[in-house]
């Protein structure tokens, strides 16, 4: 499909900016494992402090990269499937808000004034531009949803009996989840934190801030994941040479995500005070609910791949796995997608452990946690983002991929790296190794009284894995930026492989309409969160003054008087 120059350019910038920043994000990822393994015993390296680097790593990789990509991929899917481009100035406005916000937050982090990590829990305080920048990035990413929703409603009027394309359902579900959940963090940032960070308010209710953040924070991971799911359902089977086993299963999964992505955030607060046990358990139960669509997806994709493998001649029960185009350089997107699925087996299963109430005490805030989420956000999410970014760029620009045979092995190198890395972290976590900690200064420093030799092999494994991952990432940067420098050899078009469904399933109105699902989504969120917000407002005592990372004495504001 031919698209306008304006939309092409927009997508280029929305892919290019985060991938460029990703170089910083990957650097800091590697550095953390170097600090943590005790290779160096310092608080900073090359003028970048450990916790500053940790903040940059989390914000760039998990917020900036993912949000820009989701918007760009959303523009692409809506345009391709509904055959209409999003509103021009709305889309560019969205881009500029996101970019100005990113620049503000990046400045604050690089200047060392926002070493608060991507969760920015108060009473640790960052520079006001960090909060403002984050708010702009998020608000900017909302805007395209309204244009897409308009296009969709018009399309529906013209095509009342046609099933909405699965990719479109996915994009609209994803951004609905995003809009709803970010309302809470926007409130936290603009109403609770920004005035407090600027000294206009003396205290902040920490529990309320955390509850608002996690209303956002869990749904955030589905915002990351759903673009990958769209690719799994609509692209992967075609690339494998097969068909999608059940289109309906895909729709059911997407609507289940719509219901269960948001009302589960309290499972990140199992160890918090002031939130009642009842609410923790209820939201834990709902979290089991959100696991269901992933299991449906696992089966449906396996069935689709089995179809493809059998078509290519596999005979034994599990033999179909061997008959897939893993190393076909002309279908490199298959490699990126399957790599993510391999990691997601482990990432998803460990996630269920985390959600299980009392089991959480074994793993919360230990190294197990990053072990888990590098097999999810740094697994299917990351690989689908970089693979699809390359695919979109190459297609739209008409430039062939640089070093295609290197390109196709990058995902497998990454998978090996992550598996080693996450094994080290998971093992370490089970023997008490904390996350978010510069271990090299104390716990992994043989000369320090806190030295914990049990964590030497675990941090070494993580380091080994990280080196492999960094190498894979480096190869990707060479491939991507190398492709940008190549000459155009074909017309630049927007094109996706479109997967056929195996069974010709009739359109079922219930699974082709949003209203009933939105209603249920709203009801469940209210049931799950009204009690939680009441707890967060009523139970805590006094609010907290602001603290900066280097100072145990709280910052004095205009309203607080020195004793």
């Amino acid at each position, binding site marked *: 499909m031919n698209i306008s120059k304006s939309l092409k350019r927009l997508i280029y910038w929305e892919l290019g900016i985060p991938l460029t920043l990703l170089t910083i994000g990957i650097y800091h990822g590697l550095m953390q494992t170097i600090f943590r393994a005790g290779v160096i015993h310092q608080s900073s390296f090359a003028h970048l402090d450990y916790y500053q680097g940790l903040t940059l790593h989390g914000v760039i990789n998990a917020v900036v990269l993912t949000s820009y990509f989701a918007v760009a991929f959303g523009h692409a899917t809506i345009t391709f499937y509904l055959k209409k481009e999003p509103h021009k100035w709305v889309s560019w406005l969205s881009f500029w808000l996101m970019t100005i916000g990113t620049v503000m937050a990046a400045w604050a982090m690089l200047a060392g004034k926002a070493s608060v990590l991507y969760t920015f829990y108060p009473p640790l305080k960052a520079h006001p531009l960090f909060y403002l920048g984050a708010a702009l990035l998020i608000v900017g990413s909302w805007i395209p949803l309204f244009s897409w929703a308009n296009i969709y409603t018009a399309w529906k009027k013209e095509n009342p009996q046609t099933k909405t394309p699965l990719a479109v359902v996915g994009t609209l579900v994803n951004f609905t989840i995003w809009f709803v959940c970010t309302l809470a963090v926007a409130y936290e940032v603009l109403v609770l934190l920004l005035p407090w960070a600027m000294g206009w308010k003396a205290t902040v209710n920490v529990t309320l801030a955390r509850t608002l953040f996690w209303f956002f924070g869990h749904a955030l991971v589905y915002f990351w994941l759903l673009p990958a799911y769209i690719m799994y359902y609509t692209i992967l089977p075609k690339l494998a040479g097969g068909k999608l*086993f059940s289109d309906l299963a895909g729709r059911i999964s997407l609507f289940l995500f719509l219901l269960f992505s948001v009302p589960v955030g309290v499972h990140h607060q199992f160890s918090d005070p002031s939130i009642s046990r009842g609410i923790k358990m209820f939201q834990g139960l709902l979290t089991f609910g959100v696991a269901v669509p992933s299991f449906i997806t696992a089966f449906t994709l*396996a069935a689709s791949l*089995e*179809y493809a493998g059998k078509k290519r001649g596999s005979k034994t*029960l599990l*033999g179909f796995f061997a008959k897939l185009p893993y190393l076909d350089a002309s279908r490199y997107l298959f490699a990126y997608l399957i790599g993510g699925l391999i990691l997601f*087996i482990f990432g998803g299963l460990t996630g*269920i452990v985390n959600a299980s109430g009392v*089991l959480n005490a074994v793993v919360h805030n230990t190294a197990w946690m990053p072990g888990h989420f590098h097999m999810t956000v740094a697994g299917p999410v990351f690989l689908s983002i970089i693979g699809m970014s390359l695919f979109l760029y190459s297609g739209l620009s008409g430039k062939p991929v640089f070093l295609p045979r290197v390109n196709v092995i990058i995902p497998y190198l990454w998978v090996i790296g992550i598996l080693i890395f996450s094994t080290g972290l998971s093992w370490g976590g089970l023997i008490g190794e904390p996350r978010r900690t510069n271990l090299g200064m104390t716990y992994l420093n043989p000369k320090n009284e806190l030295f914990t030799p049990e964590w030497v092999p675990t941090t070494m494994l993580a380091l080994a894995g990280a080196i492999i991952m960094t190498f894979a990432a480096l190869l990707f940067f060479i491939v991507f930026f190398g492709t940008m420098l190549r000459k155009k050899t074909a017309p630049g078009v927007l094109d996706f492989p479109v997967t056929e469904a195996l069974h010709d399933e009739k359109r079922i109105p219930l699974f082709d309409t949003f209203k009933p699902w939105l209603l249920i989504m709203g009801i469940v969120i209210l049931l799950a969160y009204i009690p939680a917000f009441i707890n967060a407002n009523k139970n805590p005592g006094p609010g907290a003054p602001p603290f900066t990372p280097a100072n145990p004495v709280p910052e004095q504001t205009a309203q607080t008087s020195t004793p």
Partner: protein
Amino acid sequence: MDKPDILTGPEKDQLFDRNFKPRGAIAFFLLLVLLGMIFWYGIYFLMLERV
């Protein structure tokens, strides 16, 4: 008129589609669930041991 023993082209595809049963996928899924239970109960018993 001779009836062909082997189906060709679209009829072969249709027969393949109709006869396709995702047995391998069920096997994969059961293994996935088994692995999940191993992880889960592993942590569960570790937790009980520490009580």
